[in-house]
């Protein structure tokens, strides 16, 4: 219990630091949201409108410390203000509208990559030098080192344009509305395949290699030899004795990655025009939309810290050593 409390305190501190950075960094960038908007409109707005827009957006000349105090207050109460680049939609609504798709895409891709990657790693290490062990890692690393953008574009052209197997864009067909029907669910799933598979393809190699390496180290442990000597079935030794212990680092990375899922997958969203938080964040940074930027960063920070905290707790359960120390 003391362990959990200590971790909790650490996370609160980390949260405060990132929230503060989150406040400061955007304000170090040159320009302000209205002049960004004006520059982007390239003469379609008149200079007279700028002062008015400043007032409209509630941009203010309050001293920085004052803004900071108010900002901290807002963070605590969960009031993230109104988005500037999406004025007058509240930040919470902008994020809420997209985060479902982001979690669906990122979560699906991550889950498949982790499960399949770890299974491959376990099997490869178990039969060292076998087909899986000698062929898969080089191949996956080869595929994974392609620039993602290129790979995604290639997949889009091959499977979307040339073969026509998958839709080219969006999370579901234009002209349909979300509904709890099998038809809509399969439409969504079909649209999810290409974006998710491309993410899986580039990320699975890392999972497999990491798992394989720890697994090899674990296989050399005395208790594995002991288990074999006892005559346990290989499958049981592989999963219950070796993999369970080799799994610990993977659990940590899984936690980290899971937290970052809410940040969105910018390149995937751009290539497949998939709705999500990633492009929102890019647009917010480009447009100096402080409230939206802060909102998204806050969501990411909170998610990463929360998931890590949960992982820490799971660790206590998985690894008895943590409980003791």
């Amino acid at each position: 219990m003391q362990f959990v409390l200590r971790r909790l305190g650490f996370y609160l501190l980390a949260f405060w630091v990132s929230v503060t950075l989150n406040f400061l960094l955007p304000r170090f960038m040159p320009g302000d949201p209205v002049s960004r908007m004006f520059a982007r409109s390239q003469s379609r707005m008149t200079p007279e409108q700028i002062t008015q827009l400043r007032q409209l957006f509630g941009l203010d000349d309050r001293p920085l410390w004052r803004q900071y105090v108010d900002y901290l207050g807002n963070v605590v109460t969960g009031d993230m203000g109104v988005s500037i680049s999406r004025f007058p939609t509240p930040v919470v609504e902008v994020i809420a509208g997209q985060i479902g798709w982001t979690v669906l895409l990122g979560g699906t891709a991550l889950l498949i990559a982790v499960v399949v990657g770890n299974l491959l790693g376990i099997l490869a290490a178990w039969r060292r030098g076998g087909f899986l062990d000698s062929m898969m890692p080089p191949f996956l690393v080869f595929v994974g080192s392609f620039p993602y953008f290129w790979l995604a574009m290639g997949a889009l052209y091959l499977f979307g344009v040339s073969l026509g197997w998958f839709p080219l864009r969006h999370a579901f067909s234009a002209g349909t509305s979300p509904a709890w029907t099998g038809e809509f669910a399969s439409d969504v799933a079909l649209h999810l395949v290409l974006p998710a598979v491309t993410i899986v393809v580039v990320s699975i190699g890392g999972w497999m290699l990491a798992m394989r390496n720890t697994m090899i180290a674990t296989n050399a442990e005395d208790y594995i030899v002991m288990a074999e000597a006892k005559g346990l079935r290989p499958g049981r030794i592989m999963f219950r004795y070796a993999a369970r212990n080799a799994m610990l680092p993977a659990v940590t990375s899984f936690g980290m990655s899971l937290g970052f899922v809410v940040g969105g997958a910018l390149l995937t969203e751009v290539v497949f025009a998939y709705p999500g938080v990633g492009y929102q964040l890019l647009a917010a940074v480009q447009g100096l939309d402080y409230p939206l930027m802060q909102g998204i960063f806050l969501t990411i920070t909170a998610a990463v810290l929360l998931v890590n905290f949960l992982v820490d707790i799971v660790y206590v359960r998985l690894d008895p050593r943590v409980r003791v120390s």
Partner: protein
Amino acid sequence: MMTRFRPVRRAARVVALALAGTLALTACGPGGSGDGTEEGAAPLIIPREDMGTFVRNFNPFSPNVAPMTQQAVYEPMFVYNPADGSTTPWLATEWSVSDDGLQLTFSLREGVQWSDGEPLVAQDVATTFELQKEVLGGYEYLDKAEAVDDATVVLHLNRVYSPALYEIGQQIIIPDHVWSQVADPAKETNESPVGTGPYTEVIRFESQSFDLGPNPSYWQPEKQKIPSIRMLAFAGNDGANLAAANGEVDWAPQFIPNIEQAFVARDPEHNHYWFPPTGSMINWQLNTTKAPYDDVDVRKALSMAIDRQQIVDVAMQGYTYPADCTGLSGAYDTWRDQGLADSCEWTQRDVEAANALLDDAGYPRGGDGNRTLKDGSPFTATISVGSTSSDWLSVAEIISQNLAEIGVEASVDAPDWSAVVAGYEDGSFDSGIVWSNNAPTPYQFYRGVMSTATVKPVGEKTFENYHRFGDEQADTLLDELAATADQDAQHALVNELQAEFDARAPVIPLFPGPEWGAYTDARFTGWPTEENPYATLSTRAPTTVLVLTTLEPVQG
């Protein structure tokens, strides 16, 4: 013992199920996808490349309004078309300016109804201007809009201002009976808009696409031939260009590089494009608060060194033409002083004359071939362009090569646009490739490049006249131009402004910005073309409504 296997087994089963599920979904392939045309008639599909997702906000006073709000939902009193210089009466049938120029009277069209069935009345116009001033600003010259009777509205100006007619006439009109009930017009999202436009009904709104259906009480029902309009959201040009090349969208208003091969060649019979040079003039702006750019001879010499033909052919892929010394873009052809334009000197490439001009002006060439300024320091230039504008980057590269021929070392600086623009705004930049003001008359353009009223000192932020050049002669001409309602007098003044621009070279004009636009006539016909320029192919311009009311589905 067996029981301890369970968790693993169960996990393995879940994985297997998930995989099988994925495979099953994969297998159902193209059969499972419908392209959503269940209404029967195909909608007019338009991509929007710079919005990853849409937000349901049809508030015309919002700076981030959903696309088509100002084109398909709400309408102006008249439509000015820069492609052929014509004006089409729209919600107003006629208008007049009083003799003292202080009153504009508009007569509204009879029989126009809002999409909720209420008639259009003069009070709607009055409320529009009141709200516009209150929420978004602008219209400083407008005292008030007064509804004289149901069909007549008079706008009282506080000073004579000739560009007012176009600005007021093109303002989109909102219904008083709806907006007078709105508590805070700035923050209203207006989810189900009531407008006079041809397509006002939101059939479906998702963050990645939305459909607008026909207005049931439109005032020219015979022109609503498009079944509905569907907007698609794209996070960048690539996706939108792919959709266009694939023939999945009807109208592609975004920039498509190498359009002949990437788009037209995919279906030469149906795919077409037209890039009228009616965008804003693109200039090379020199910070005239700095030496040597404060010297008109330097500006002209630098201009003469530039190979505009190469810029147009290579950097802009031949989609526009070189600028002349009037500085006017293709949108102002009716205002151009052709005599002056034909005898331009400093916008023609002439390296020899440029060298001679710089020699005479006191910028000698050293032994290494590089020039020095009057204080003896090297003559160098930095050209700033935003890193994302690849076409303008090559423009800057070409200029930099050209300048080497006259002994000026120019480097191209390409950080993020925001950093570039921040430098423009506070006047700390050296030089840059910059757009200019674009309005129905040349008044705003000339005001933005050479009136003292728009000059701000270095360090103070400005949003036009970044190069900070002011000319009192131009001020006088601009004031006179604003104060006269007489067409002939206006043309005479604009001629004088062109001469003044030619004499002072406040900026170095490069080429008129093309208005991008491509379309396929496989499903809809009646598009504006170079031969029939009744509008531009922009989907964000006031002329868009003209296209929407002209297109008709291909029969059969």
